[in-house]
């Protein structure tokens, strides 16, 4: 190891060159009081992706849209009362966790799966906003209906993700002898599948649905086959060491889920201010206390529903029936409807 030292230093210089500069700059920002920093700055900085249709990305007019984007806006409403007081920092899959650790962003809602190693790496996961799973997409004319039908097929996969491990695991478990064709970026992987290099494309089911929606031809030219029974909870994350900010982000997300449970939506939120239901009154801040407990405005949940909507509305806007992706709610229904979205009490 001692002999390696010069190379380690050299490697650090090259690999971390920008990083070192950045963290020096941000050193002062790494205070435990994110809320204060956000208020002083006047906007929330959110990690985002430019090419995750339905989750995050600018539309034709340049306005950011998606489930992750709306989550960010909800956090901005909770912290600052205004859904526009937010800026999006586009990040690649490899940059995202470092960007959060070094204080470049305040919150990372970028289709990041909650895993043990990531959680242990200096960040805290809040509340899942989407439950995804890994799947293969195959051309319908090939006639594949289940995993067994994929025996001997070649599969295009992106490196550096959990997906390639799932591909290897599935192949080993069911002796499918899958032939991986691996690329280091999303575009090459998709292009290889579309040009016929592979029989299957494996990635998150939501990304497959999004891709399928953008392809020419009919959507049912392609079949999506679930790869395993694992569920990937895509969860916004915050830095270690600021419990108040951790709580604010959690309840900004929960406000959307609870609102759906309570039957509060964009259309009726103002009317329901006069509701006699104590749950609704507490939620909307008519009976104060919730916001103050978090150190923010008491009407934050009301503002989130009024400016953005409840979880069901946000889902339908970006991923569901009102979007071109049209992904069924599935696991992302409320717990009372058989899904995994769990409302936590606003008491």
């Amino acid at each position, binding site marked *: *190891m001692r002999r*390696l030292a010069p*190379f*380690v*230093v*050299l*490697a*650090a*210089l*090259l*690999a*971390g060159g920008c*990083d*070192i500069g950045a*963290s*020096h700059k941000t050193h002062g920002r790494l205070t435990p009081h994110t809320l204060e920093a956000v208020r002083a700055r006047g906007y929330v900085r959110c990690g985002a992706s430019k090419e995750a249709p339905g989750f995050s990305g600018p539309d034709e007019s340049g306005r950011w849209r998606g489930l992750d984007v709306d989550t960010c806006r909800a956090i901005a409403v909770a912290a600052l009362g205004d859904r526009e007081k937010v800026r999006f920092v586009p990040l690649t899959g*490899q940059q995202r966790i470092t960007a959060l*650790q070094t204080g470049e962003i305040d919150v990372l809602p970028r289709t990041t799966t909650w895993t043990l*190693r990531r959680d242990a*790496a*200096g960040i805290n996961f809040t509340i899942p906003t989407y439950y995804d799973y890994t799947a293969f997409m195959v051309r319908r004319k*090939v006639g594949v209906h289940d995993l067994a039908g994929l*025996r*001997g*097929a*070649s599969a295009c*996969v992106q*490196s*550096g*993700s959990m997906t*390639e*491990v799932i*591909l*290897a*695991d599935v*192949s*080993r478990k069911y002796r499918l002898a899958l*032939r*991986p*064709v*691996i*690329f*280091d970026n999303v575009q*090459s992987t998709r*292009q*290889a599948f579309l*040009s*016929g*290099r592979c*029989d299957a494309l494996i990635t998150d089911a939501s990304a497959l649905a999004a891709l399928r929606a953008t392809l020419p031809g009919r959507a049912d030219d392609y079949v999506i086959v679930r790869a395993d029974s694992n569920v990937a909870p895509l969860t916004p994350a915050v830095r270690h060491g600021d419990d108040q900010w951790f709580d604010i982000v959690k309840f900004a997300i929960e406000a959307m889920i609870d609102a759906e449970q309570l039957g509060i939506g964009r259309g009726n939120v103002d009317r329901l201010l006069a509701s006699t239901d104590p749950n609704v009154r507490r939620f909307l801040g008519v009976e104060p206390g919730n916001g103050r407990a978090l150190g923010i405005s008491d009407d934050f949940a009301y503002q989130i529903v009024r400016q953005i909507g409840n979880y069901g509305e946000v889902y339908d806007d970006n991923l569901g029936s009102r979007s071109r992706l049209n992904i069924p709610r599935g696991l992302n229904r409320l717990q009372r409807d058989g899904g995994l979205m769990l409302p936590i009490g606003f008491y």
Partner: protein
Amino acid sequence: MRRRGAGHGWGWWLPQIALLLALAGLVLVVARTVSDNMERQDMVLSLGFLRSTAEFPIAESFLAYAPGDTIAWAFVVGLGNSIALTLLIIVLSTMAGVPVALARHSGHMLARTLAGGFVDLVRNVPLVVQLLFWYGVILMAFPPARAAAQPLPGLFLTNRGITVTTVGITGTALPMIATVMGGLTLTLVAAWRGRLHQASLYTLGTIVAGSVLWVVLDLGLARDVPHFDRFNFSGGLTLTPEFVAVVWGSVIYASAFAAEILRSGLDGVPRGQWEASRALGLSKRQSLRLVIVPQALRMIVPPMNSQFITILKNSTLALVVGYPDLNFVANTAINHTGQGLEGVAILMLVFFTLASAISLAMNRLNARVQRAGA
């Protein structure tokens, strides 16, 4: 000669010491910043991750690999791919450079123009662009696997790769193979030492011994004809489009540079040498072999050294067309283990070592050609 530094006064030593101190200070500052940053992110520098399991797949490799092997072995497998790739490109591009160089040197106008155009075109387009061109435009335009083109019996061209029928030896072939390999090694050693007569005797002996063993061991040949399964070809040998693209693209690219190095070597030999050898009654071919080439080699070998090192380093571009070289595997391993610093350090150390090995071999070759006929 006086030893450098000896007998110098303070005026000479002070700047040297100051520079050394400044350098040491810089290294210290960088090392401290790195360790501070790592501490803040709860990162620990350790090579222990090499022993953990590599769960990720590697698309293809010369050495056997399966998910579940160690990370260290994944690195070795990537290294195997890189070395095989580099050697292949070095040999093929140098061979391909010879006709181009001779064409550029010839009196034939068309050959000269074509070769010149080839060199200009290939040298002036970035290698990454060329690799993507061969992969995405040419190889992906091959027919799909079900409708494979079959230009020759047993040869299939598809956008899943080039599949050929292979011929294998049936029976216990190891003694025969070992004998032939041994004979070939002896031949090469003799040829390297310049004992051509001895080398040809070894070749003859190898052929005879190999044939005798073939009959004695009752060996046979069997063809392995590829057949189409539900999705892909099985049997035979398949060169994937990723492998073909990186080898073909890099060979084309490197051959243009090799051709220029060879040509400049030939041009560097003074005209007088041609005239002198003609005056001695040597034919054009004889003058080339006996007079010009030995002198040209002295000018060719040193730039070829950097050419080969460039080929080694350019092999890391394999990742843009999805071929898993060491760089690709290391990046994947870093992504799965989070040990970025260690992974990059290993990469740098390995490439530094490989490049040094190339330099060492080329320097020895250079010493030989400079000595020859000097």
